[in-house]
């Protein structure tokens, strides 16, 4: 568990005041199982699929599945920031499509009618432009939420349509089929983003790892990370403690938009084509990964490790079911049931924690009543 959200009362050697009357805690097996439930679910999934299909545990299949997981995980890491803050970002799926289309239109030649030329920017320019567009979508979300007080659900729902519409307008509804670039134009290399491999492992997986590490660092080690947790936990208290709440909100949407744009680049590169419809319903998978990973939609609780496990559970579940030849209709149904089950277990775990803390607080009240008055 992430140290930021550790709720367990661990006795430390350096505790400031000895507390003679702490009730003994029964470390019951139940709460341990609850704590690691998403991970246990993942292991169970692997065991079940491995026993039902010979090809599940092959290296090739694992790498392919993990690559699919990476698409969702990168989105979900961005989503985690927003959900920790107590918001939601429904626009990420559309941003995936928009960023792919922006890359596609630039790679196939950018019509500058004013100068009557067609520009073929280099790949790094294309990448930066796509990421900038995704970041812009996030910034618009942030402005709507902070400046105009639009509820995050509504603001990002609106941007879901706006960004999708923009993708369709730019591409005129058609798919950009060839993103390879050509040698004479000097814009080759785009396909390496999603298709390339480093040390035999697809770049998408490396990108996921890098994003996850950065997110862990930001959330655990920087003031901004702490502010995200504080704002999601109690916005009023955070503000009164001097946390720049508006800045925090603005930034989490920008992070989410950036992650979505990255996913858009990776997938369109992998597919070697950019369709304006790319990314439809991706936002729901990202939210599901965050929730399965134990984050609270009310904010303030969740961590990167949980999100990664959540993304793996969802990814392995879908790919495993495909491998077994289970019908798509069943796949969807099973995925929904898993999400509901995850949230039910989370509620049960929170109840245990709450009652444990309430008992500790009651014991604390009692002991402070019996304690002698503090000297002046």
């Amino acid at each position, binding site marked *: 568990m992430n140290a930021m959200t550790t709720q367990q009362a661990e006795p430390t050697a350096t505790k*400031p005041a000895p507390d003679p009357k702490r009730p003994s805690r029964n470390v019951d097996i139940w709460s341990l199982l609850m704590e690691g439930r998403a991970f246990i679910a993942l292991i169970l999934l692997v065991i079940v699929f491995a026993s039902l299909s010979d090809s599940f545990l092959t290296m090739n299949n694992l790498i392919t599945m993990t690559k699919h997981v990476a698409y969702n995980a990168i989105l979900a890491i961005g989503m985690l920031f927003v959900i920790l803050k107590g918001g939601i970002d429904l626009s990420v799926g559309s941003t995936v499509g928009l960023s792919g289309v922006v890359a596609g239109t630039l790679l196939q030649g950018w019509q500058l009618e004013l100068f009557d030329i067609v520009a073929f920017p280099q790949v790094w320019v294309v990448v930066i432009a796509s990421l900038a567009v995704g970041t812009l979508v996030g910034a618009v979300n942030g402005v709507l939420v902070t400046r105009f007080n639009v509820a995050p659900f509504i603001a990002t729902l609106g941007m879901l349509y706006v960004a999708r519409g923009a993708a369709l307008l730019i591409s005129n509804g058609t798919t950009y089929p060839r993103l390879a670039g050509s040698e004479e134009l000097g814009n080759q290399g785009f396909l390496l983003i999603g298709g390339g491999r480093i040390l035999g492992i697809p770049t998408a997986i490396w990108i996921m790892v890098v994003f996850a590490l950065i997110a862990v*660092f930001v959330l655990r080690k*920087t003031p901004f990370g702490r502010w995200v947790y504080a704002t999601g936990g109690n916005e009023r*208290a*955070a503000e*009164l403690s001097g946390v720049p709440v508006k800045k925090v909100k603005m930034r989490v949407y920008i992070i989410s938009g950036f992650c979505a744009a990255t996913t858009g680049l990776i997938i369109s590169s992998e597919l070697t084509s950019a369709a304006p419809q790319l990314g439809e319903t991706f936002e729901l998978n990202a939210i599901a990964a965050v929730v399965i990973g134990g984050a609270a939609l009310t904010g303030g609780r969740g961590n990167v490790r949980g999100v990664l496990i959540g993304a793996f559970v969802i990814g392995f579940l879908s790919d495993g079911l495909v491998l077994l030849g289970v019908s798509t209709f069943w796949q969807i149904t099973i995925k929904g049931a898993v999400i509901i089950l995850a949230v039910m277990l989370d509620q049960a775990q929170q109840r245990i924690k709450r009652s444990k803390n309430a008992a*500790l607080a009651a014991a604390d009240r009692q002991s402070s009543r019996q304690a002698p008055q503090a000297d002046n």
Partner: protein
Amino acid sequence: MSDAAIERDAVVMRARQITKTYGATRALKGVDFEIRSGAVTALFGENGAGKSTLMKILSGVETPTSGILELDGREIQLASTVDAAEHGIAIIHQELSLCPNLSIRDNIYMGRELVRGGIVVDERTENVRTRELMARLEEQLDPRTLVADLRLGQQQVVEIARALAGDARVLIMDEPTSALSGNEVEVLFRLIRELTDSGVAIVYISHHLEEALEIADHAVVFRDGELVATGERDAIDIAWVISNMVGRSADDLSPDLRDDFGEIALSLRNVTVADPSNPTRLAVDDLSLDVRAGEIVCLYGLMGAGRTELLEALAGRAPIQRGTVTVGGRELRGESIADRIRMGLALVPEDRQRDGLVQTMSVGENSSLASLSAYVLGFWIGDRRERDAVEKGIADVRVKTSGPSASITSLSGGNQQKVVIGKVLMTEPDVILLDEPSRGIDVGAKGEIFALMAREARRGLAVLFATSEVSEALGVSNRVVVMSKGRIVRQFEPKNATREDLMIASGEATEEELTGSAHR
């Protein structure tokens, strides 16, 4: 009074040896209590004395740990408020429990809608009866008006109407007048007399001693979970109530205070703040005040006197409309809360749960939240720096916890409050503002909090704290500033002032009431 009593002073409801424990805490310790028909029984006691817990038990919100409830001499079990309502017991809560998005009518009939043919809500009859109820309460309001559009006082009237609509035999009123104007209080009191004349038993709780004594037939005083005194109307006065309310605990406070102060640390000149709930009204009206380094100044006043609004505006939560505020010689010019904290001005808010703590974070994370930037090295938080500061901080305010990683919700109210104060002290302020710092914590922790305040003042901090408890105002301050309706009405030195002086100045009681021992 009227002689029309039908069944006056017969015991309708009786509680026998009621105890209530929360975890290891005993909120009520074997209380015997009687409610009489056709009479008003007034309950007195400081916060945490057990009044509210007893009322929750009588109205079915909570069940007693042990003890018996009797109605008309027969034992009853109240498992819920619905049970209580079926027995004719209704409660008007201290906090408004109305749905602002619904109309007056829908609020009054919430949960007990009149239904025609088993399906359709009979709005017409509901309208007629609501109008009758409002007429009895002398409010000219359309039953279809949204509660959100009503003044606070009118909302209180709706709350009262809701209790009346159920034809209650026992009516419990917990601070019913806190939001009412003088006129509305008169109407309420007339209505209470009407109700008692028709045999209804009323239990009345108020911090407004004068008012409560005016309407009381019997008085009962609670202290530390026990019923300590009962008295009849003719035998009691404010002095009797206060001496029984306070008992011994009053002298637990009073830490050492210094009397040599430093420079002026906080200076207000003609400060004016709008009422956030009603911008046309002023919550703070042209107020000027200086607080010196090392001095503890108490803002005393009733609810709604403008204390909270003043402190929140100083901290940067709400804008100051007019006037100047100087902190350590620098004038404030609309700085953000964060900037004011850096300037050395910080607030311990009134509502710990809502404004003071992040419940999802640990004790340590809550402590360092306001001073995080002090531990940053480059881009990230220095783990060791933060840990050292947190450990020093929570030891400094004597938080009893198993360690910085313990959940904040595992602490008692008193310890949570120490964390909030510790968080503010870790920003190394020059001026600290505390709004009702003892709210909702028990007597022992209260003493510790005030000792802490006095210690910080000795170290040179300027302290401005707000309270509505006289014993705190007189016990732990160098100067008491009495506020009423947004203005300073008087200032006292605690050693030259009495409880009565403060109560008269704040408008809590009038002189006649305090001197005349017998009550009308």
